[in-house]
């Protein structure tokens, strides 16, 4: 992998001068034949790929009026140019959202607009050739589908939809990304992104039960496949495997335990993440979502709760009913589905949990809003609940909390740099550079308020920060799970 320089943190964010082609070399590994075929895509570039790609594009705009409007309506006003973390971190002008979108839009214009068909050069329309395909592969894997640019677009153009469409077109001609497609295949066969088989899951959960008992003296269970439980918890498989994710999982278990809630995990639906969204594939997204439905029916649960996973919550909150509904067999007194932060928040509101915030006095916290939660979903029954509820949970669990600057949080949050299917080692340069705006905002609260830790509710964000924090002079363990704070603060047992 090529060497690169980590950007320098400046006291104030600056919009960098453009460096043409600065990231033209960046591209992830290609999916292998069997990764592609498992997902129903061609194993390699098909012979008449231009025709297939153009037809696919036509099919996509016919099926989605939104996509057609996004492709037709950009007036190149430039409001999005300095809003993308990948542009701010890499200086490559093709990472300005308008320019990245135009890689697809110029081809759409050539084949699907009157002016482009007859006077292509007058309207910036171009033929689809190998160079264009290569450029798509590079730059549509430099968009984390975070949708920050869309917040500032006066037309509301959703860049993520365009990146998803581009990836779907590429998959349809046999050009897929290894990271996403290998993972989707595993989730569809084994049940989770890691490929963690049931016996390993059983062993891991038993180990965690032992750890909790050793640490607290209280028996807190991690039930798996227990029929008749009230709640099915669907959580990212990283929660079983990685740090600090696992500390969040321990937190959920303690909350359920202390609130007396009956719950279970499922070995069949042992994954909340749904990478089908990242590659824009409805079919693959649906297959993964159906596993959740089947597990809920099989186990006979009354509620479905999702753990800390950003895009999983977007899929769950927005699409689960369309993909795998109706969920009329669940208890309608609870949101279908519900976020674990909502569960904990409700319990806190009802004084049903005793939290001792001084347990986290060794930390000064800030909160990283995850893109897909902030801009793609909601929590609770009030506007902005997705911002207020995680913060309320954190503040109930610790004494020292400071938000990062206002233009870097909530709906204006910056991506961690690894979202949207880019959390892979073959894109480390992009991930490090793309995290620059978040690191600058973090540095500010570190300097101003002595912040020591960043809390998050997304498995991707947590893994990304563990990896990139050291590049910027921080420690890898300065990222924590929100329910890790709850886990530290919760008072278990009956003592009042």
């Amino acid at each position, binding site marked *: 992998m090529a060497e690169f320089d980590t950007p320098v943190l400046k006291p104030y964010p600056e919009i960098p001068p453009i460096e043409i082609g600065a990231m033209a070399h960046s591209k992830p590994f290609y999916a292998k034949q069997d990764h592609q075929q498992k997902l129903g895509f061609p194993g390699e570039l098909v012979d008449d790929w231009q025709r297939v790609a153009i037809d696919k594009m036509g099919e996509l705009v016919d099926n989605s009026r939104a996509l057609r409007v996004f492709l037709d309506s950009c007036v190149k006003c430039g409001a999005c140019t300095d809003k993308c973390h990948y542009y701010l971190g890499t200086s490559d002008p093709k990472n300005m959202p308008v320019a990245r979108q135009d890689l697809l839009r110029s081809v759409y214009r050539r084949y699907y607009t009157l002016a482009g068909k007859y006077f292509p050069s007058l309207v910036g329309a171009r033929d689809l050739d190998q160079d264009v395909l290569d450029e798509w592969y590079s730059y549509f894997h430099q968009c984390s589908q975070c949708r920050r640019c869309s917040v500032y677009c006066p037309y509301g153009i959703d860049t993520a939809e365009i990146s998803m469409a581009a990836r779907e077109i590429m998959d349809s001609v046999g050009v897929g990304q290894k990271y996403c497609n290998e993972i989707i295949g595993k989730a569809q066969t084994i049940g989770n992104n890691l490929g963690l*088989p049931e016996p390993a899951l059983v062993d891991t959960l038993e180990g965690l039960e032992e750890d909790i008992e050793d640490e607290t003296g209280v028996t807190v269970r991690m039930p798996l496949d227990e029929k008749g439980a009230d709640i099915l918890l669907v959580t990212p498989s*990283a929660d079983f495997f*990685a740090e600090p994710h*696992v500390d969040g999982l321990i937190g959920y278990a303690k909350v359920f335990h202390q609130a007396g809630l009956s719950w279970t995990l499922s070995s069949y639906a042992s994954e909340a993440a749904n990478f089908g969204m990242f590659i824009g594939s409805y079919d693959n997204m649906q297959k993964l979502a159906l596993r959740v439905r089947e597990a809920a029916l099989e186990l006979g649960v009354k509620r479905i709760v999702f753990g800390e996973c950003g895009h999983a919550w977007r899929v769950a909150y927005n699409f689960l009913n369309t993909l795998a509904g109706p969920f009329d067999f669940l208890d309608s007194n609870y949101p279908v589905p519900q976020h674990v932060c909502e569960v904990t928040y409700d319990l806190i509101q009802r004084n049903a949990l005793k939290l001792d915030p001084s347990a986290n006095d060794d930390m000064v916290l800030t909160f990283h809003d995850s893109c897909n939660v902030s801009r793609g979903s909601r929590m609770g029954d009030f506007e902005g609940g997705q911002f207020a509820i995680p913060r309320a949970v954190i503040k109930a669990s610790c004494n020292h909390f400071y938000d990062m600057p206002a233009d870097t949080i909530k709906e204006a949050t910056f991506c961690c740099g690894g979202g949207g299917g880019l959390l892979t080692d073959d894109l480390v340069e992009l991930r490090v550079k793309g995290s620059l705006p978040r690191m600058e905002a973090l540095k500010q609260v570190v300097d101003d308020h002595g912040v020591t830790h960043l809390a998050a509710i997304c498995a991707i964000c947590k893994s990304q920060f563990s990896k990139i924090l050291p590049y910027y002079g921080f420690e890898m363990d300065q990222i924590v799970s929100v329910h890790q704070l709850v886990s530290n603060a919760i008072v278990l047992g009956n003592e009042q």
Partner: protein
Amino acid sequence: MAIELSGKTYETDEEGYLVNLADWNDELASEMAKADGAVLEDNHWEVINFLRDYYEEYQIAPAVRVLTKAVGKKLGKDKGTSKYLYELFPYGPAKQACKYAGLPKPTGCV
């Protein structure tokens, strides 16, 4: 990609992970470490051997906590931390140690 060693060729993926698990041997592990500028010592081997045993039983690498606990039992409690594992395997215990152990790279949001 491939590794050439003692007149034999071992197929690897783009990142140097062995394609065929059965190809693995001690010498190959040391060769992979050498390519990263590392020398495998007894403590590395404890981790590598644990990973291989665990994989044989469960067809997956152990979770970080499972690994730290096992290392703590074997090498002493002070070494049963992810910090210690990162000292041994600076590119990440899950990924780098799996590579030397001839196991596939863990996938997902990790």
